[in-house]
C-alpha cells in the first residue's frame, strides 16, 4: 500500500509540474534558481503527504478499539484483533507519510528544476 501511495504522489506531482510548466519558466526568468524550484516542489509534495497522513489518522479514529476475530474450526479457537490507534501510531504514521512525500516528489521536483527556461515557457 505504501509503494502504491508513493507512486500516487509521484504521479500527482508529475501532473503538477506539467500543468505549471509556464510558471516554472517564468520563475526562472525572474531569477529563481534550479534549487529554489526543486525545493518548492519538494515542499509542496511533502505538505500534501503530511495533510494526507493527518487526514488518514483522523479518519481511522472511529475504528479505535474495534475488535474483530478469526475463528478456526480445526482447533475450535478464535484469534481476536483489537484495533488501537495510539499517539505512537499517529506520529509514526505522519512521519512515514512525510518520507513517502519526499520520495514520491523527488523525481518530479528534479524534472521541474531541470527544465530549460524556453522549453518550460513554450510547454505552458
Amino acid at each position, binding site marked *: 500500500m505504501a509503494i502504491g501511495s508513493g507512486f500516487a504522489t509521484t504521479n500527482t506531482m508529475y501532473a503538477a509540474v506539467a500543468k505549471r510548466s*509556464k*510558471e516554472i*519558466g*517564468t*520563475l*526562472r*526568468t*525572474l*531569477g*529563481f*534558481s*534550479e*534549487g*529554489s524550484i526543486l525545493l518548492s516542489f519538494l515542499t509542496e509534495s511533502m505538505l500534501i503527504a503530511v495533510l494526507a497522513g493527518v487526514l488518514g489518522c483522523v479518519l481511522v479514529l472511529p475504528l479505535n478499539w474495534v475488535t474483530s476475530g478469526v475463528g478456526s474450526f480445526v482447533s475450535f479457537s478464535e484469534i481476536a484483533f483489537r484495533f488501537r490507534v495510539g499517539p505512537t501510531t499517529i506520529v509514526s504514521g505522519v512521519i512515514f507519510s512525510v518520507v513517502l512525500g519526499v520520495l514520491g516528489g523527488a523525481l518530479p521536483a528534479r524534472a521541474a528544476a531541470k527544465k*530549460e*527556461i*524556453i522549453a518550460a*515557457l513554450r510547454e505552458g
Partner: protein
Amino acid sequence: MDTVVEARKLSKEYIRDADRVVALKDVDLEISGGEFLALMGPSGSGKSTLLHLIAAMDRPTSGQVLVLGKDPHSLAGRALARWRNVHIGFVFQSFNLIPVLTALENVALPLKLTSLSAKEQMEHATTVLSLVGLGDRLHHFPRQLSGGQEQRVAIARAIVTDPDFILADEPTGNLDAASANEILELLAALNRDHDKTIVMVTHDPHAVRFAKAIRYLEKGALRPAGEQPEDWVDRNISVVSVPSAKNSSEALL
C-alpha cells in the same frame, strides 16, 4: 552613450524533428545605455531568440553576447539566476502572472530573492504598482484584471528590482488597440523619464513608433541599421524615422 549590450557573431541553432533550424545567424548588435530599441521581423525571424539570448534565458550555439561588459553565459546555476534577477526585467506577451497570487504578490515575487524584509518588499511593490497606475488594484487577482492591467502588473514586476534592462517580447500582442497604446506609452515613459534601456520585440508598425531605434531581423540575420525590408516600403510603412514617444505618456508616471 556607453554600449551596454554587444552581440558578436551570435548564432543559435535548434534541432526540431531531426531537422537543423537556424534561428539566428552571425548577428552583430550593439545597444547603447538609455536606448529604446524595437526589434522587428516576421514570425520565425529570430527576434525572440535574440531577446532570450540577451536575457541569458537560452545559450547561443556560437558567438558571444556581452551585457554590461560581461558574458552572462559564462555564469551557471545560482550565479546566472542571480544575474537575471539583478539585471533583467522581462515582459512576456501573455503576461505570465502567477494566477493564485494577487497583483501585489506577483510584483513582490522577484524581491523574494533580495535581502529586503517582507515589509520592505510589500512597500516597494506597492510603490511600483502605483507608478504604473494600479495603486487601487493591489489585492486583485490576475483573473480580476483586464489584459492591459495584467500587462501593467507584469511591467511593474519587471521593474521592481530596478534592473538595467527591460526586455519585452511582443508586449502588446495580446491587447486591444487602446490597452496596447497605454502599455507602449508606459514603456516610453520608463525609457524617457527613468532612463531604462528597453529592447522590445514586435511586428506591430504602430508599436515601433514609440521606440528610438529599430532593427530588422529576417531569417535569423540582422539587417544593417537604418535599412528596412522592401515589402515594408511597398506597403508604405515608414518606421525608419521614429518620432519621440507622445507627451501624453507623462500622465502615466
